[in-house]
């Protein structure tokens, strides 16, 4: 009895002091750094009433920024959906020299600061850049217009889908697909009826993350967009512009939109994560069974 009691006491991390200290620190830090700023955004945005918020959001330039942001996301998400799926398929279903290197390279956009990425694109595709000067001869301008914004957004968000799919597809292996092809199914039928249902939730999760990042990207976009109001101003850039104009309420109104998207993303992410954990659990119990 006595030994078990003392053994219980010696269990690592079970000291009440440490436990409550950690819980307390977690509460303080989350409140100060995460919850309060979020509340402030909505509080400030609604400070002058719903009418002012609506007026601010319906402002011509804000509307344009919203439109451009959604347009960029609408192009980026499907592009990276296809790119990410193809890449994950490639590195999990085929063996070739440089495969490991490729898996590492996928993470470059995570490792590089977005501002640096924007700068690189500017140097490469800008009017005086290597590719840009050649394109300029054909009157094609990528930088300081929407194609440039889409390009850097694609760059910044390209790992999300692939990163979600690769571990799952690695774990699932390719036996089911082989079984499908032996049974005479066409490549498209295998993808549609075997592969896609198996990776569905990871894919949705990747899309949610890609979308959130595409909508909120600031650094890379600010370098290549040129910040032209009503033309190349995305929502995050617009927030900064309004703030610099001392239009605090307007800035917060736009910011509240972005924050709203973030909260929605979190909810969607939570739901998908829950579904995915269920699939993975089932996979693991299947394997141990």
């Amino acid at each position: 009895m006595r030994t078990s009691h003392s053994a219980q006491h010696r269990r690592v991390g079970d000291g009440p002091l440490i436990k409550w200290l950690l819980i307390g620190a977690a509460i303080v830090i989350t409140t100060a750094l995460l919850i309060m700023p979020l509340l402030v955004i909505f509080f400030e945005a609604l400070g002058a009433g719903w009418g002012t918020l609506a007026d601010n959001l319906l402002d011509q330039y804000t509307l344009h920024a919203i439109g451009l942001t959604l347009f960029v996301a609408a192009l980026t998400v499907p592009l990276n959906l296809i790119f990410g799926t193809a890449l994950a398929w490639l590195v999990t279903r085929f063996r070739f020299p440089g495969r490991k290197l490729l898996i590492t390279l996928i993470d470059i956009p995570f490792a590089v600061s977005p501002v640096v990425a924007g700068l690189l694109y500017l140097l490469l595709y800008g009017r005086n850049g290597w590719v840009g000067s050649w394109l300029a001869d054909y009157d094609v301008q990528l930088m300081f217009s929407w194609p440039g914004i889409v390009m850097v957004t694609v760059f910044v968000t390209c790992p999300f889908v692939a990163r979600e799919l690769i571990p799952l597809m690695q774990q699932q292996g390719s036996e089911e697909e082989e079984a499908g092809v032996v049974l005479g199914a066409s490549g498209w039928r295998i993808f549609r009826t075997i592969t896609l249902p198996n990776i569905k939730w990871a894919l949705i999760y990747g899309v949610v993350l890609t979308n959130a990042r595409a909508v909120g990207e600031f650094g890379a976009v600010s370098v290549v967009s040129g910040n032209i109001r009503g033309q190349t101003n995305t929502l995050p850039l617009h927030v900064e512009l309004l703030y610099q104009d001392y239009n605090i309420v307007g800035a917060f109104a736009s910011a509240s939109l972005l924050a709203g998207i973030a909260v929605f993303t979190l909810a969607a992410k939570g739901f998908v994560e829950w579904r995915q954990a269920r699939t993975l659990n089932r996979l693991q119990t299947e394997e141990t069974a």
Partner: protein
Amino acid sequence: MSITVDSINKRFGSYQALNNVSLDIPEGKLTALLGPSGSGKTTLLRIIAGLESADSGRISFSGKDVTGVHVRDRNIGFVFQHYALFRHMTVAQNIAFGLDSLPRKQRPPKAEIKRRVSELLEMIQLPHMAQRFPAQLSGGQKQRVALARSIATRPKILLLDEPFGALDAKVRKDLRRWLRNLHDEFHFTSIFVTHDQEEALELSDQVVVMSQGNVEQVNEPTELYARPDSRFVFDFLGQVNVLSGDVKHSRLSLGSAWVTVPGIKHQGKAQLYLRPHEVRLATTPAANANLPLRIEAVSLIGSEVRIELRPEGWHSTGSDNIWEVGISHAEFNQQRPARGDLRYAVPEIGHLFTGEDTQPETVNWAEAESAPRVRLIN
């Protein structure tokens, strides 16, 4: 449909998985590809299926070259070791998949597919599981569903990759019998890969023993067991007791241990291979052999009592320096051999490998000597 494998080569990087392999698989027979892991047996099966392509060589079905035919169009049944059931489809949907995948013109109508699926469900004795998902089935049930799925389109060839490898012993035995019946009923040409000698010998009509990308021997199970061609096949097919030494004046000796080999001309290095049932145990050395051994373990489970012994004063090269001898339960009850007892092995039939010559020579002491057969006498 017969299958012909003609000088197949396959490399994975610097590793030669298959080395100029040629084989004839007769129509309607159940053939086992037997070998240790890394022997290339699974690779060969996958090349026959078309899931893998050979670097050179040809595969023909009934004389028709199918080397360039896509796996999709080879119309074979393939059963995977880990079942590879479609996890998000029900059992019924899994079984129907092959039929649903047929081109529109050959595809039977929906009602016909449904009928075929329920027929197959009856056959695998799982009609009540039709709406279950694979995760809800046991291993044996999954493998039966996988089998039903693979034969739904009535292929002429059935290929099985370690079909019972992931199952426990009891289920394995049931499924083995069941597969044998299935094969006899449908007359497929079947090939199954296994590393389990017992499974290969019990289930198949023909065994192909493979090692390091080569075919070592092809024969019927009984012949294979009785007349292994090489040291490898001998070692691989069941327990074997080895005496490796020098022959001088028709006596093979190693340290204090020796056996006389009647009528031998060979001089120099030789290995004597003895199966557990080809050796007797006595309490004194026999006239033709002096092989002292000390009993290490006695196992009573099974139809025979298995006795493990360690060479006393000499060293055996095979099986971690352990000899194994099987005696009947009657003999055991009479003699009561126990751990630590000293016994002398008396060979009755043996297989002698000499020098580089890989074909063994069978030695029969019981016949060669007019001396009375040595029984286990206390």
